């Protein structure tokens, strides 16, 4: 037996009805697909952004603020670490390199981050997309998405940037209006290098020698001799303070040893990945809850559609009885009804996957634009499996109308 030609014919003659069913089911499926894909992409994107941040040190305060400010360049008011720490850490046996991270200026809303060449090249591991690391106080390396060519000059403005006001607490600058952007006189940087794309907020950042940031803010420049040099070693007495230090330990054991030691000294030392694990655990919990809610919604939509199909079956009972009169077995009627529903579910599943991918991509694009964190959205096997399970569940539920059709009395239905 072959109910397919009848299923196709039914689809053709009831096209608007079938299209509405498919659309309603597809939208329910799409919401679930988008929620699952987005949750995974936020997890992946936030983890990828923290890849290069092994151990971050800040003055005692909020660990979330420290990670948000240093890894994601998000607004946070950070207390300052003592300069002696910056002077000591690069020489520590367990440290491959340690780079300060200082904020305060911006160029057209893009944060200018004061640091050392070690952060630019990740201790020599990272090759720049263009040019080289800065070697003088007036040189800058820009993120992949900063619209400045090599050789271009930029004038820093005070303030951490529109929508990105990462403002360090300068104890000696309390009287200064941090919100009002204004140029630092004639100070200017020349772009000498460009970082490769990282799909994180650092793509929009401008990296400059931290000495210049300090100098522009009227602070001591980190070096005892006024010789204009940049980078470590720093003179602790000549460093007013630094919001965060990024440390690349030599080995895993060193990482844990350093963290313990820094903590014992009263500093805030943490692995961003650790904080992310906690965040992801929370996100995972929310994801499970959202997943359960969307699944419940989908099941309700499926059941509603099946009920509508059962009602529609009543209207079709004469046509089904006619098939029986022409010799169709009860099994054929069951397969016909079940096959029709499976067709609806199958189309809805495919359309739902597509719509879900589109929705997730749209939301990720919006989220990525507002946070600067690249959200790699991909509808993969987890979503396909999820839709397959839903379609299988729907197919199981569709046995009910199939069975009802199977049991219809032929003679009574023929009389109408």
């Amino acid at each position: 037996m072959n109910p397919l030609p009848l299923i196709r014919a039914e689809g053709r003659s009831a096209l608007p009805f079938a299209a509405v069913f498919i659309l309603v089911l597809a939208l329910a499926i799409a919401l679930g697909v988008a929620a699952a894909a987005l949750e995974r992409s936020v997890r992946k994107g936030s983890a990828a952004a923290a890849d290069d941040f092994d151990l971050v040190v800040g003055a005692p305060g909020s660990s979330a603020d420290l990670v948000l400010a240093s890894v994601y360049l998000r607004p946070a008011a950070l207390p300052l670490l003592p300069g002696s720490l910056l002077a000591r850490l690069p020489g520590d046996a367990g440290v491959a390199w340690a780079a300060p991270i200082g904020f305060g200026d911006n160029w057209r809303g893009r944060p200018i981050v004061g640091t050392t060449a070690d952060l630019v090249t990740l201790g020599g591991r990272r090759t720049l997309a263009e040019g080289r690391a800065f070697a003088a106080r007036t040189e800058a390396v820009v993120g992949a998405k900063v619209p400045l060519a090599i050789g271009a000059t930029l004038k820093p403005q005070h303030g951490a940037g529109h929508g990105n006001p990462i403002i360090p607490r300068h104890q000696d600058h309390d009287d200064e209006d941090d919100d009002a952007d204004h140029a630092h006189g004639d100070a200017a940087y020349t772009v000498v290098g460009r970082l490769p794309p990282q799909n994180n907020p650092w793509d929009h950042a401008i990296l400059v020698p931290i000495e210049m940031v300090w100098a522009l803010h009227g602070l001591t420049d980190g070096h005892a001799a006024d010789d204009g040099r940049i980078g470590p070693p720093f003179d602790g007495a000549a460093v007013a303070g630094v919001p965060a230090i990024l440390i690349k330990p030599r080995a895993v054991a060193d990482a844990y040893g350093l963290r313990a030691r820094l903590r014992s000294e009263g500093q805030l030392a943490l692995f961003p990945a650790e904080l992310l694990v906690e965040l992801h655990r929370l996100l995972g919990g929310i994801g499970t809850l959202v997943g359960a809610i969307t699944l419940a919604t989908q099941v309700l939509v499926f059941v509603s559609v099946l009920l509508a199909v059962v009602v529609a079956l009543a209207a079709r009972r004469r046509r089904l009885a006619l098939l029986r009169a022409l010799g169709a077995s009860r099994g054929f009627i069951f397969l016909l009804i079940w096959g029709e529903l499976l067709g609806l579910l199958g189309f809805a599943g495919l359309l739902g996957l597509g719509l879900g991918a589109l929705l997730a991509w749209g939301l990720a694009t919006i989220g990525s634009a507002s946070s600067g964190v690249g959200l790699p959205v991909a509808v993969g096997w987890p979503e396909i499996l999820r839709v397959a399970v839903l379609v299988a569940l729907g197919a199981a539920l569709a046995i009910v109308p199939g069975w009802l059709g199977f049991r219809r009395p032929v003679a009574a239905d023929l009389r109408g």
Partner: protein
Amino acid sequence: MLHSPQSDDGRGLALQVEGLRLSYPMADGRELAVLDIPAWRLPAGAAIGIAGASGSGKTSLLHLLAGIERPTAGRVRWGGTDITALSESARDRWRRLHVGLVFQDFHLIPGMSAEENVLMPAWLDHVRAPGRLTARAAELIAQVGLNDQRRQPVARMSRGQQQRVALARALLRDPAIILADEPTASLDRDGAGRVGNLLLDLAGRSGATLIVISHDQDLLARLPRQVKLEAGRSLAP
């Protein structure tokens, strides 16, 4: 007298009805008797018209003869087969192979073309319609005069054309029995005449046993025998 179970050309089947009763239980516990036919026989290949007022039990009789419904009591034998003794699935199969049904309202599948509707019974037990059935469908479509419209969706056809498609569908498997329930009732006079001609002509050519239930006196008059059903109780000539 018992007639031979099959006609000379081997197509039609003889009918033998014994003590056939159909009744339905009513709300007050009593039974509503719909049919009560003590005995009735038809030779193989016979053609007969059944008249009767509305509610006389004509359609119920047709359902019992087709094995669509089981009687409360009695036997319906077609050839050597007592269809009242068959299981529901066996009756489905028997009906598929031996009975061609024509209805007043055609009951075509609206999303299909004329050709697909004629071929539809083939899909009840084949994945693809076998070549002989495809060829037979083409032959029947030509015989009912719809060769040029064979790919046209039936929803866009006139009522007369639709009933001609239904006629071709009923004859696809060369059934030994053709049962027609008011085949001309929903057609205008011209359409009814044309469909009546085709029904008698095609059934005559196939040698099938033909039973036509109708109010259409023109159609009944052209059948070699007519009987009248009165309150489901007799098949008087």
